[in-house]
């Protein structure tokens, strides 16, 4: 149980950051299928910075910056150049794969200390939940508060209202005095930073190594988790925990010698996601931002 919870937290944290990144972008009406590439660039930038400076904190900041920069390029393409979001996103993904491999080529196999675990005094001693929840690195501790903060920001602040308005109906938002271009840029820069952090969590938090394409599809899982979370940051916590838990559970079941094929166990996270989606039923008409994926043609 302890092992399962620890594993769920560790495997779920990068997914949570990535899902939050996609949520904020999609709330502003932009689908970014390039999240995988953003994560990879974040992962490599974070790792290289950590190697060069010896500071994991600098690594995380650099990863956030790199992710935001890459998403700024994406924003320029889809917001200013009005390029198709899906095609641009896929191109961004492949560009991110190549760029990260190039940047990281001479850093594969370099040892780093990475993010260190900071057990919470007192709480870490609690049985079961102590090691599972209170003996992690700073990025793990920050993930859930950031999700809650984002939830509050989206649903209880004027800026959040503007983001949601742009995602629902940019023309109306424009008429109400909000510039959709500015709002989408803000949302995508924030998304890029979060995506970069998601990557850094993998390279300097979980695995403490850099390898080409080490995100292994997590960027796409996050895009699916957005739908699962119904575009709500709070629900993203549950989604990431469930998916991370399923990954952890399937590995744990194998160590216990459960007589189920490893191939079937490997499908477990995906099967579980399908089961939950089926149980929750349709996404509901009002869940997805109405103008998601549409290009705002301006107001001329």
């Amino acid at each position, binding site marked *: 149980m302890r092992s399962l919870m620890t*594993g769920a937290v560790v495997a779920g944290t990068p997914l949570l950051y990535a899902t939050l990144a996609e949520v904020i972008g999609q709330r502003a009406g932009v689908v970014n299928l390039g999240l995988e590439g953003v994560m990879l660039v974040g992962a490599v930038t974070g790792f290289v910075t950590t190697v060069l400076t010896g500071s994991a904190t600098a690594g995380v900041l650099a990863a956030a910056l790199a992710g935001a920069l890459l998403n700024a390029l994406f924003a320029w393409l889809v917001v200013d150049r009005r390029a198709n979001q899906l095609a641009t996103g896929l191109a961004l993904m492949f560009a991110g794969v190549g760029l990260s491999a190039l940047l990281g*080529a001479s850093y594969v196999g370099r040892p780093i200390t990475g993010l260190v675990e900071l057990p919470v005094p007192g709480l870490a001693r609690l049985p079961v939940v102590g090691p599972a929840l209170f003996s992690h690195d700073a990025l793990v501790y920050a993930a859930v508060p950031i999700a809650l903060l984002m939830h509050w920001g989206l649903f209880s602040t004027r800026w959040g209202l503007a983001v949601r308005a742009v995602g629902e109906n940019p023309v109306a938002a424009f008429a109400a005095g909000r510039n959709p271009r500015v709002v989408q840029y803000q949302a995508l820069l924030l998304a890029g930073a979060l995506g970069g952090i998601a990557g850094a969590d*993998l390279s300097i938090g979980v695995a403490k*190594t850099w*390898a080409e394409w080490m995100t292994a599809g997590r960027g796409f899982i996050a895009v699916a988790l957005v739908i699962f979370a119904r575009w709500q940051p709070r629900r993203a916590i549950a989604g990431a925990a469930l998916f991370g838990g399923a990954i952890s559970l399937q590995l744990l079941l*194998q160590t216990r010698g459960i007589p189920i094929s*490893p*191939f079937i166990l490997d499908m477990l996270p995906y099967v579980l996601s399908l089961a939950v989606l089926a149980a929750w039923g349709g996404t509901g008409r009002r869940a997805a931002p109405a103008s998601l994926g549409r290009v705002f043609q301006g107001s001329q």
Partner: protein
Amino acid sequence: MKARALVTVLLVALLLVPVLAPAQPKLIVGILHIGSTNDAGYNQAHAEGIQVMKRNLPEVEVIEVENVPEGADAERLMESMIKRGARLIIPASFGYLEPALRVAQRNPDVKFAHPGGYKRLPNLTTYWASTPEAFYLLGMAAGKVTKTNKIGYVVALPISFFLANINAFELGARAVNPQVETRVVFTGTFLDPAKEATAAAALLDQGADVLGVIVDSPITVVQTAEKRGAYSVGYHYLGAQTFAPKGWISGVAFTWGNLYTRFARQVMDGTFKSENILGSLNDDLLVMAPFGPAVPPDTAALVGARRKDLAAGKAHPFTGPLKDNTGVERVKAGEVFPLTDLGKMNWLVEGVVGQPR
């Protein structure tokens, strides 16, 4: 008049070309890697082999490309290497086999050497090294070192060669410590460091105090073990031990340098022929890493003695009677499971916790 002058100039230029152009290398070797050549694992072992070949044969030129996807990209790259003059191509991943076969059929003058394959052509040789003996010896060392009698293995996929390695490891461990249990986790992929870290942590949480690894890069698992104060066993590349200065037990690594030198020489002097090369600890294709500080001298001596027996044929890693982990008899008493049949080993031996498929 003008035209004539131009022709003269051109002719002179043409004559000068051989003088100005750099000397043609005697042989150009093309090598494709599936991953990065500094992964401290599978790919680095091949890359170091090429480095050794270059040192042995400075007249040979190398075209080396990393991170080549298996499939059409590999095929195109091999064709382009041939256009650039490569006469020996090493597609250094199992998954390059089909593209390599197609390119080899189209280019009968170019020689190919493919690792771990099961198909050959007159101009495509296959090579690998048999690892179960080495895993058996690693198992002996680990079996002596473990205190919890639980050993964890993080393995990419349940394919027969890997199952054979795990089985040999467990049998070696049991030979010195009948209580040892090896728990296997399959990650389903050769490269997902974050998942490898989670799997390694799960094994350690289950009480394992030794971790082994069969994925492309052993770094993550070896590092995780070291951080948690556990021991580790490496694979593929000798350099892995730098990630576990305290907990390192030993490892087995491929050393392709002499073989690649041989291939290059054979292509240059025209004696290359298609073979099924299977090296072992007895030749120069496979080495055991030095023992780490965790291994006491008497254990090292014990392992050394068994190694001599294995080399002399006095011992065999798969000696019957052997049962699989569901209780079915797989090797009868007095018989051995031939090392040439490893492709058929689709079971895990008694004492291994894990599902072979």
